[in-house]
């Protein structure tokens, strides 16, 4: 499979009154064509900022991409000028956001919002874009799309608004769809509808997907590969089956153990990860997870581990071998 996106050393900082926030600390990852990559982590770990950096959507000031490259179809997204990136955004790379209630414009009709990209990127006229908008709404299973195209967002439910967002994302047949916690604001039955829809669409259209979430459950059923992020860095990256069957980073292990599972034997007590994520302005030296890590050794507090390959297509940034072997 050909590589679609290659990110190298991406580093994003926010320059605030309190100091420099290290939101994304030199991350590397690849994405193949048609592949689904899950990015998992807690709030503030840099998962959204990393993709917003790729899309060049970091508000500046205070934020800035201070280093790194992101090669997409032979071109570096980070070095593009505004006009070039605008021709990629919404066209070759589309994005859907977390909150469907606030990411649609309440004073424009659904047609006006979905057709905008069609007219801008594909140069369609009104008649063509109207026809295509109805097709897209059908594609995301909005019932009676032709009748609802002139409705306003408030006439749609949360799940349907997220479908409209997906329709907008798909409008220009993107090679890459970035979904930033698209189901977090939705109920569990609606979430199942949306994940099911994306899974089907992916097969029909064959685009690559980056799916950002804090929910390890969703990723298990959706992704091919997973990056686990903590405090601005990727701490573990693996194929989805390897990650769940053979987690190697103490943080990944901790996450998997701290959530109750619907299908497992009920435990009397959960095993939480003690403590809090670090302050991104004042990062601890060494491994950023060390203060919360039950495996931490002296070395962890002083030296930062780099991502190293531990198995096929499986990299971990940790000094400790949690499986008990030697490193």
């Amino acid at each position, binding site marked *: 499979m050909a590589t679609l996106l290659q990110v190298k050393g991406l580093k994003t900082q926010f320059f605030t009154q309190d100091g420099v926030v290290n939101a994304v600390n030199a991350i590397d990852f690849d994405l193949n064509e048609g592949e689904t990559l899950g990015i998992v982590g*807690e*709030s503030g770990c840099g998962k959204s900022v990393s993709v917003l950096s790729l899309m060049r959507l970091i508000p500046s000031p205070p934020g800035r991409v201070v280093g790194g490259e992101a090669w997409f179809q032979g071109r570096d997204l980070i070095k593009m000028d505004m006009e070039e990136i605008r021709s990629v955004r919404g066209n070759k790379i589309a994005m859907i956001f977390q909150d469907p209630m606030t990411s649609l414009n309440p004073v424009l009709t659904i047609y006006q919002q979905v057709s905008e990209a069609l007219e801008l990127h594909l140069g369609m006229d009104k008649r063509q874009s109207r026809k295509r908008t109805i097709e897209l709404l059908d594609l995301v299973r909005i019932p009676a799309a032709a009748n609802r195209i002139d409705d306003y967002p408030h006439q749609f*439910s*949360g*799940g*349907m608004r997220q479908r409209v967002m997906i329709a907008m994302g798909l409008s220009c047949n993107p090679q890459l769809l970035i979904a930033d916690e698209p189901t977090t604001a939705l*109920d*569990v*039955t*609606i*979430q*199942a*509808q949306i*994940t*099911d829809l994306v899974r089907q669409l992916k097969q029909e259209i064959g685009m690559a997907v980056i799916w950002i979430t*804090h*929910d*390890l*459950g*969703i*990723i*298990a*059923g959706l992704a091919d590969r997973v990056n686990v992020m903590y405090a601005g860095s990727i701490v573990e990256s693996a194929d*989805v*089956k390897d990650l*769940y*069957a053979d987690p190697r980073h103490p943080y990944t292990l*901790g*996450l*998997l153990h*701290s*959530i*109750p*599972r*619907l*299908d497992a034997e*009920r*435990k009397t*007590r*959960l*095993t*939480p*990860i*003690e403590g*809090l*994520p670090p302050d991104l302005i004042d990062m601890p030296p060494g491994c950023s997870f060390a203060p919360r890590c039950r495996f931490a050794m002296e070395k962890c507090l002083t030296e930062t581990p780099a991502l190293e390959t531990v198995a096929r297509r499986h990299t971990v940034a940790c000094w400790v071998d949690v499986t008990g072997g030697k490193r």
Partner: protein
Amino acid sequence: MAETEILLQVQDLKMWFPITQGIVVQHHTGDIKAVDGLSFFIRQGETLGLVGESGCGKSTTGRAILQLYRPTGGDVYFQGQNLTKLKGEPLRLMRRQMQMIFQDPYASLNPRMTVGDIVGEPLEVHNVARGRELRERVMDLLEDVGLNRYFVNRYPHEFSGGQRQRIGVARALAVGPKFIVCDEPISALDVSIQAQIINLLEEMQQKYHLTYLFIAHDLSVVRHISDRVAVMYLGKIVELATRDQLYFDGRHPYTKALLSAVPIPDPAVEEKRQRIILTGDVPSPANPPKGCHFHTRCPVKITGTCDVTDPEFKDIGNLHWVACHRVS
């Protein structure tokens, strides 16, 4: 489980919010039936989980039980006393027995009050303690919930979400209640912090023999913490059973769909799973469907029955209640 004393009995609880029209004269044009005829009981020392999607009336149920809303109809018996008939001083005294933990730890703590004042306020209101004694008591409570006792002079903004929720727990525990309504206490927290708060709630339950009504939308968490679970849909309980009955032998089609929609963090399991994907959205509680409220989305509905008559909420044996025409 040994039969223990019933602490709270709810009978045909209704909470309707009026819909009005008109600017000068308000005409009553309809009702949002947020809670529409719930009956259940909670035993001393147990945790009843209440699950359902947003807008199904689970939070309203919690508030109507505590008389934060005065119910439109029905009775709530707490230790044999009918709370809906109480008002003024007798009701205020009952509040010492019943407390609440809220969802959003950022909105439920007054940013201008110190932690000491927040946790101490219920003690003052109910004349439990004052002065030096009150301060000692507050410090003990903070220690109880896993915070440093010298945090009393700090303000809420100095704490993380998980720590704030601990403050909320301390406040609820301050007056020594018997019964606590936990209204989505972990939904606003990060995954790694959620387990800390769940463990804390369980520890406190054991230590102080508390009874919980645990409201949540996360079925995995509810399964972990509850002894019995009630599933709500559009203002009604559709199924109520012990944890294992519900999770292994759920009878209502909505319960089954809800359980199958929960993602499981294991790709091998996810691959093989058969999902029941419900079509459509939850209808509006202002205008609920006729007959069974769930029939518009139900994969096994009987036309002519489910869309005409409302199924009875009945015990199918072993205190397992279901409201469905398909289940007998």
